[in-house]
């Protein structure tokens, strides 16, 4: 993706802190900095992959971008309009253009609603279609996602995980959105079913001109589907670049360790691979380390890393990184 493409979503220094309450009167005792100063752009019709480990804030970024969480600080510009500046009605109106696909297809579909009413719910909220047009649209949507349109009167429990995820996708597409946040849409599915859903998402993107933010922890799947990739660690984006650039020439030590930790389904390559094994665990986000977030596990940390936070900057063209010593590691 080049810089001449139109920017659809801009995220500027986004922060989201969650209060931790405690004590007798549930006073706010401290904050968890789930997202702590994240900035990036998403170009029209691209897929931006967002990867990171548990608790790094990737889901919070996705949700805050849709204003499902009120951001603590920072701006989100959707098609040039600052979402913070919108009133409730206008925000709801804008929300038609951005939708979300959730991780857990078991928890995100109401078990008491039929497939027809689940997929049709966004139409009820945002449009004044009569029953007949609505029914026709729902059946069309089911057809688009590869489900039998006659299933409208069935309930979610009658479907498998992969099929439920298709229902979730149909619901997200109901209002012809431009931007879809896919929050780990495949991580609860079996391998052979994952490929079905990913292929569907790619096909829909081509057909409907969608822009995706694809959140996942499975690096090989994100590499498969993304045009550009952002890597998060402890509430911050540590590196962002084109997909191939980040895989071949990543500069942040965390990104490199993360990639080298991905198991390869090929015994020959697995043997040859240089592995960087990090020590220790991810620090507690309510008490992040001083200086660079990653200094507790970084194999190349020097003095400055324990005092100064590295700046997130464009090290090479279109390749952003937050590290004092961006380099290729020797393992």
């Amino acid at each position, binding site marked *: 993706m080049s810089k001449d493409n139109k920017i659809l979503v801009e995220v500027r220094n986004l922060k989201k802190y969650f209060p931790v309450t405690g004590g007798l009167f549930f006073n706010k005792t401290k904050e968890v900095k789930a997202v702590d100063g994240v900035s990036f752009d998403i170009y029209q019709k691209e897929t931006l992959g967002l990867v990171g*480990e*548990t608790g790094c804030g990737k889901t919070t970024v996705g949700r805050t971008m849709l204003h499902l969480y009120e951001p603590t600080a920072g701006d989100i510009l959707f098609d040039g309009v600052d979402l913070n500046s919108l009133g409730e009605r206008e925000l709801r109106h804008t929300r038609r253009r951005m939708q979300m696909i959730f991780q857990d297809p078991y928890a995100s579909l109401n078990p008491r609603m039929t497939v027809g009413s689940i997929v049709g719910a966004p139409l009820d909220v945002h449009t004044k279609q009569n029953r007949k047009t609505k029914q026709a649209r729902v059946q069309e949507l089911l057809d688009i996602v590869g489900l039998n349109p006659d299933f409208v009167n069935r309930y979610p429990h009658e479907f*498998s995980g*992969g099929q439920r995820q298709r229902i979730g996708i149909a619901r997200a597409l109901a209002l012809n959105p431009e931007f879809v946040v896919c929050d780990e849409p495949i991580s609860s599915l*079996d*391998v*052979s*079913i*994952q*490929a*079905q859903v*990913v*292929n569907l998402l*790619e096909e829909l993107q081509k057909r409907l001109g969608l822009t995706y933010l694809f959140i996942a*922890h499975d*690096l*090989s*799947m994100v*590499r*498969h589907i993304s045009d550009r990739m952002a890597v998060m660690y402890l509430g911050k984006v540590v590196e962002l670049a084109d*997909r*191939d650039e980040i*895989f071949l020439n990543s500069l942040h030590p965390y990104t490199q*360790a*993360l*990639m*080298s*930790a*991905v*198991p*390869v*389904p*090929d*015994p*020959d*390559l*697995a043997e040859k691979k240089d*592995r960087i*094994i*990090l020590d220790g*665990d*991810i620090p507690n986000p309510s008490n992040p380390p001083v200086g660079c977030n990653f200094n507790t596990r970084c194999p190349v940390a020097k003095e400055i890393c324990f005092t100064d936070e590295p700046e997130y900057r464009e090290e090479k063209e279109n390749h952003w990184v937050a590290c004092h010593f961006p380099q290729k590691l020797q393992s």
Partner: protein
Amino acid sequence: MNPILEIKNLKTRFYTQDGVVKAVNDVSYTMSSGEILGVVGESGCGKSVHALSMMQLIPDPPGKITNGEIWFDGRDLLTLNEDQMQKVRGRDIAMIFQDPMTSLNPVFTVGFQIVEALLLHNDMTKEEAKERASDLLNLVGIPGAKQRLNDYPHQFSGGMRQRAMIAMGLSCEPRLLIADEPTTALDVTIQAQIIDLVKKLQDELGMAIMWITHDLGVVAELAHTINVMYAGSIIETGKIRNIYKQTRHPYTIGLLGSLPRLDDSPGTELVSIPGLPPDLVALPEGCPFAARCGYRIDQCLTEKPPLVEIDGENHSVACWRWEEIAGMGTK
């Protein structure tokens, strides 16, 4: 190498309201001492149930082992009574489970739980057991082992809990360690640590390991041999290189094709396996994979293919058309 475990015609059934679930269907194989065996398959393929059957941990009712022999150390485990089996579990065969949070008791310290296992199976004093427990935590790479013995499970991170589980599994120096999806709940960088640890421990202690997983990447890094399971049967088994490089069963081919690889060229479409695994209550008469298989012929629908050895190197496949598939030059 001498066999440590020989399973013959194991069948496990669950008698439920909806009918008889045929969870394990005629599984037979042998494991040598010091071997790392990967058991791979999707949810519901019987990989965990077959291991639980070995340990006789199947809840009865509704479960029942209806047929088979499990030879371990010159004895058929299925003929042992509960007391005798109790002595095998933990001492000769140990098991690590997927979720380290639910398999550790939250109200006892980690040290207490390891010491408990040691005292149960060995003739030692409490002091000796404590000493040994701290050695074990040291062995699995938990810093400050002696102090950490007094910690409760919630004070450990996910990776450390899994290390503690491994320490507990190793406490009585079992000859066979069954690990049921031990890294599935962990992040990739932590998973890499655990895989590295298990490899090292296997080198030092020389026990056989059965590693049950759905992740074909993890076993490629670890296992010597692989059993691929589908709908309760082994459909392909062999040395790791044969499975990945001379794949013969259409299901294994599909499973490998549905994984994106880090060295794929951009734009490669994933090969997905159409459809869903069969209902174990109503298994088809012929090959269980027939309904989803692109190589299906009439014979597949009526006769179940037996697992036959194809190359004199213990590479066996249950498919009527493996020879033609080999001829087609699929990798």
